[in-house]
């Protein structure tokens, strides 16, 4: 299994290289530059700045220099946040984003799985229709609509929750709901479908023929197979949480990685944007690997 994991990680390097190249090309193709300001800089100052950040070199040379630095885990200095490296910014923003993302993911799984399984076991009954209506709503309402709506209801009209920022656990309630609801709904639909299927399987019939209690049939015999599609969804879901958090962090003013990403893109902060893109890429690779390893644990027939 260790050699499998290593092979997967090595195999990800070309993918990340392509990702990095695309990010580099797209950032340079965008009009404007990192030192454009309302007031035109004196030509000598601009030339000095560009020389300092090697922007005066030909593009291929800049590209080579950047790849070389990245290979040494150095994402370079930020153009916007002077005297701060991209590594510092990621180290500062990522823990915040991770906390938010993990809480949203936990929320989605803790509520989504039981909701979907309940719907499956009460198939075509009121509980099923109720749960699936909730799920449909959750999927249909985009988080950038849900978030301002919640701020209006819970922070402006009623002073129940803080509208933004980070301090206590109350600050997390709305961002987690905004980020996790759609995924919770999707998990519920997946859980419903897979539970219905596995409850019809031959081995669940065997379990019932053995006189096992309904609870044991569901939790011991049906659960592992019911979870399998949810586990495969976790890889893309983690990606969704990461990219989704860009919007949510901006709306709620949370100083996470997503905010740096948006600010970096607006300010043409080349190194910051490329660094965050690469970091997201690495995260997604790691998530997908973790998901595949989780498969092996859920299904003993899978071997590496």
């Amino acid at each position, binding site marked *: 299994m260790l050699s499998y994991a290593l092979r997967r990680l090595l195999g990800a390097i070309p993918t990340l290289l392509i990702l990095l190249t695309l990010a580099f090309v797209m950032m340079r193709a965008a009009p404007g530059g990192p030192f454009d300001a309302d007031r035109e800089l004196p030509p000598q100052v601009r030339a000095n700045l560009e020389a300092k950040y090697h922007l005066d070199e030909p593009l291929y040379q800049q590209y080579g220099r950047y790849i070389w630095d990245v290979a040494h885990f150095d994402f370079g200095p930020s153009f916007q946040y002077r005297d701060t490296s991209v590594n510092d910014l990621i180290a500062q923003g990522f823990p915040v984003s991770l906390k938010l993302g993990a809480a949203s993911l936990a929320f989605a799984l803790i509520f989504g799985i039981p909701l979907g399984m309940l719907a499956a076991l009460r198939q075509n009954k009121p509980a099923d229709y109720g749960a699936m209506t909730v799920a449909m709503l959750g999927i249909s309402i985009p988080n950038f609509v849900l978030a301002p709506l919640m701020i209006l209801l819970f922070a402006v009209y009623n002073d129940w929750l803080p509208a933004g920022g980070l301090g206590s656990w109350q600050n997390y309630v709305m961002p987690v709901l905004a980020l996790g609801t759609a995924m919770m709904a999707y998990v519920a639909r997946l859980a419903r479908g897979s539970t219905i299927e596995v409850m019809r399987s*031959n081995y669940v019939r065997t379990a019932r*023929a053995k006189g096992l209690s309904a609870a044991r049939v569901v939790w*011991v*015999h049906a659960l592992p197979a019911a979870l399998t599609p949810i586990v495969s969804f976790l890889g893309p879901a983690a990606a969704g949480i990461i990219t989704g958090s860009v919007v949510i962090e901006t709306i709620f003013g949370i100083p996470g990685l997503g905010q740096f990403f948006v600010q970096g893109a607006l300010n043409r902060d080349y190194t910051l944007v490329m660094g965050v893109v690469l970091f997201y890429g690495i995260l997604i690779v790691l998530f997908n690997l973790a998901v595949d390893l989780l498969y092996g644990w859920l299904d003993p027939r899978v071997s590496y």
Partner: protein
Amino acid sequence: MLLDVRDLKVSFDTPDGVVEAVRGLDLRLAAGESVGIVGESGSGKSQSVLALMGLLADNARVSGSATLQTDTGALELIGAKRRVLERIRGARIAMIFQDPMTTLNPHLRIATQIKEVITRHRGLRGRAATKAAIEMLEAVKIPDPARRIRYYPHQFSGGMRQRVMIAMALACEPDILIADEPTTALDVTVQADILDLMAELRQRTNVALLLITHDLGVVAGQCERLLVMRHGEVVERGAIDPIFEAPAHAYTRDLLAAVPKLETPHFARASS
């Protein structure tokens, strides 16, 4: 009478209307007796026994009566509460199914799957349950049972899996074993081994057998009596020998004619 089934009817509500699967089955089974139910696919033989176990799909409607003799008197199975049926299933009436590839849970070790039924009905836990489970694997002649009990189903061959199913079914010394096409999915040589094993275990435990199959050859070797079903109805019933010698119903004659015979092999005729 251990099991007395009278006028059992099963129908299913489907989007296309009501489908009648079983149209009045009468069946009596004495302790230790073995009865075969023979018929083609869709003749209602499997649905009949699933109805006895209360294992039919939600859209099934069952009527009639099936009484099981218990220590506390006769118990009506049709329409019995779920909790009552859970005490019967696996303990008094056990069942094995056609396809051992899919009837064992691929996610759980054999140990878990045998021990849970022993825990449920015999109240044994931990080491005592493991010991009882290993004894059952020994009884169905799985070599090296103490080690193989830790295997997952996919680590066994089809025949070995069916042995595991039999071990699980007989673990709580049931009065009745329902075998629904137990050898259909197996290789011919493995079929013979499994049938021999079932015969041997039946002699030792005196469990009554309800054998469902489309193969009259299997019934001839295993059963004392026989029911032939077609389109949800019993078309012929009686002791094995008279039926095999003089089948009354045309359908039974067709079934008998379909059993391959060894007397005049094709290659012998071709060479002469």
